[in-house]
């Protein structure tokens, strides 16, 4: 049983990071029909930006700030203006393919300009154990979980309690009507891209100390985020959160109890079952099917 608790906490910690990435993914889909196949690479890149800032001599906290700002500039503003805006009117598929090409581009650029090797990355949570309910638990897991939960709660508050959040939701649900009632739709869409860029940078900061900074680490992360988004519900922020946590836990339990070889298969089977039995996701609303 004790082992199970450790697995659950570690699973929730990685799951919370998946959730953050998946939330960004669903936000982009909701406001601008962008299926971002480069989302995993978006998580991989900010860690390297922070490493580069530290390499120039910035202290860790400043490097984090620089990395976040650069990420919002490149992966938020740049991504929207240079890739999404010119392609959006041509439909979902060409844009999705373009993001696949972007994923290759980011991966290769990191490999070329930084390093092909995995680099260690400092953790913002100190190492060591703390005792919870009389049990020793890695501080790192708890810290990551706490930060991720704080981010998710903050985002949910922003979306549900503030005027800007309501305007963003209106933009996502019906851009035409939103425009008619005077919501600056364009600005709201840009805001979701910036929020996504912030979320991936945060995820990068939290997950890179665990998995090291490597140019190819985006593939696994991106897939986990996709699955989390779909399992939870493609059109719901809280669905993506639930999906992320679920995938994190299932992945960790599968590694321990199924087999390490087929651990990656368990979330996939879950994905196929969910799509076939409940395509709108666990918490999602049924989307109108275009015929």
């Amino acid at each position, binding site marked *: 049983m004790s082992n199970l608790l450790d697995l659950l906490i570690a699973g929730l910690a990685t799951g919370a990071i998946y959730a953050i990435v998946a939330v960004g993914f669903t936000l982009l889909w909701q406001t601008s029909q962008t*299926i971002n*196949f480069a989302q995993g690479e978006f998580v991989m890149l900010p860690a390297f930006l922070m490493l580069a800032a530290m390499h120039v001599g910035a202290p860790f906290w400043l490097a984090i700030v620089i990395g976040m700002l650069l990420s919002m500039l490149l992966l938020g503003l740049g991504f929207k203006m240079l*890739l999404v805006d*010119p*392609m959006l009117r*041509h*439909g*979902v*598929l*060409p844009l*999705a*393919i*373009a993001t*696949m*090409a*972007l994923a*290759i*581009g980011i991966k*290769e*650029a990191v*490999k*070329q300009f930084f390093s092909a090797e995995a680099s260690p990355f400092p953790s913002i949570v100190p190492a060591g154990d703390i005792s919870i309910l009389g049990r020793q638990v890695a501080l790192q897991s708890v810290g990551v979980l706490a930060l991720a939960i704080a981010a998710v709660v903050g985002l949910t508050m922003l979306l549900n309690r503030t005027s800007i959040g309501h305007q963003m939701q209106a933009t996502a649900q019906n851009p035409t009507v939103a425009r008619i009632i005077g919501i600056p739709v364009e600005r709201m869409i840009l805001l979701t891209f910036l929020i996504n860029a912030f979320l991936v940078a945060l995820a990068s900061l939290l997950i890179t100390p665990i998995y090291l900074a490597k140019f190819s680490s985006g*593939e696994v992360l991106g*897939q986990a985020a*996709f*699955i989390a988004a*779909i399992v939870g519900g*493609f059109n719901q922020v809280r669905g993506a959160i639930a999906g992320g946590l679920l995938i994190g836990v299932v992945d960790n339990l599968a590694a321990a109890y199924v087999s390490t*070889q*087929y651990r*990656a*298969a368990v979330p*996939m*089977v879950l*994905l*196929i079952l969910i*799509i*076939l039995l409940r*395509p709108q996701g666990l918490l999602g609303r049924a989307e109108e*099917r*275009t*015929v």
Partner: protein
Amino acid sequence: MSLLNRYWRVALGLVVIAALIIAPMYLNRYGLFILSQWAVMTIAAMGLNLTLGYAGQVSLAQGAFVGIGAYSAAIMTANGMPLIAGLGVAIVLCFAIGWILGYPALRVQHHYLAFVTLAFSTLAFLVFRNESWLTNGIYGISNIPRPTILGYPTNRPLPFYYVCLGSLALVSFATWWLIRSPWGRAFVALRENPVRALSLGIDTRRYTLMAFAIGSALGGVAGTLYAPLTQYIDPVPFNLSLSLDLLMMVIVGGSGFFFGPFLGAMIAVLLPEWLRFTQGYYLMLYAVAVILLLIYSPTGILGILDRYLTERRTKAASALRAVAKSGLEPAP
């Protein structure tokens, strides 16, 4: 006008075919390998073009079918059976699995379908890697023999290139015939408007499954050629990125155009090689080129051509109309 056009088209086709037959005689081993790879990938992309471009069903699993074909060929030939037997197994297996994979397409569409096929792709990769008794796991299968055709061994690169080219020609002809058959028209009807297709009496259920099965079977054919081409296979080339690459080839070439996969595979296989002089930057430049192309023309390379031709035809038609209006007889 259109007659001239047709002559031009036939002439261009003949020149390309002649070039594909003659030019490789002057290429080295590596050049032949790349060209053979182009032919193989074109076959796989044609299968995906059938599923995606004609029947409108997004699939991210074509790479897995290439893998299934390659492993069928490798395992059969390693056990002393001829490649043609491997081909048979690959086609039957991929057709059947493709048919089953088509069932989700009856329930979900678009991005959901893309994700189901993505999950299948990952599962197939795990099976290739983990079922060592069958696939030899991460160590792969080596020394895959090349076939002897009509008593003529194709071990050397040039003859095997002609095997690939010949297979490409056969597959192209079969696909061309299929697209013009009632089946092909049913596929297009399925893509354009499934509800109307159904109301016109087309069994959309059967044709959706059929589109998946035939497209997947072509992936299997490509795999059967891939195994003897590289003579060594392991799970790595058949991971998700091959499926993504194939999808990119179809879209970049021009999805729903017969010649789209030829051009798309050319971009995906040859362009990185041409850019190799830039050393570490070549895949980066390739990615940028693909993005720029898609921004300029989301319908791919053939989309540009199509736009240009339509524009010219419209201009020619309005010129003819102007002539007719002014009271003169239009040119016959």
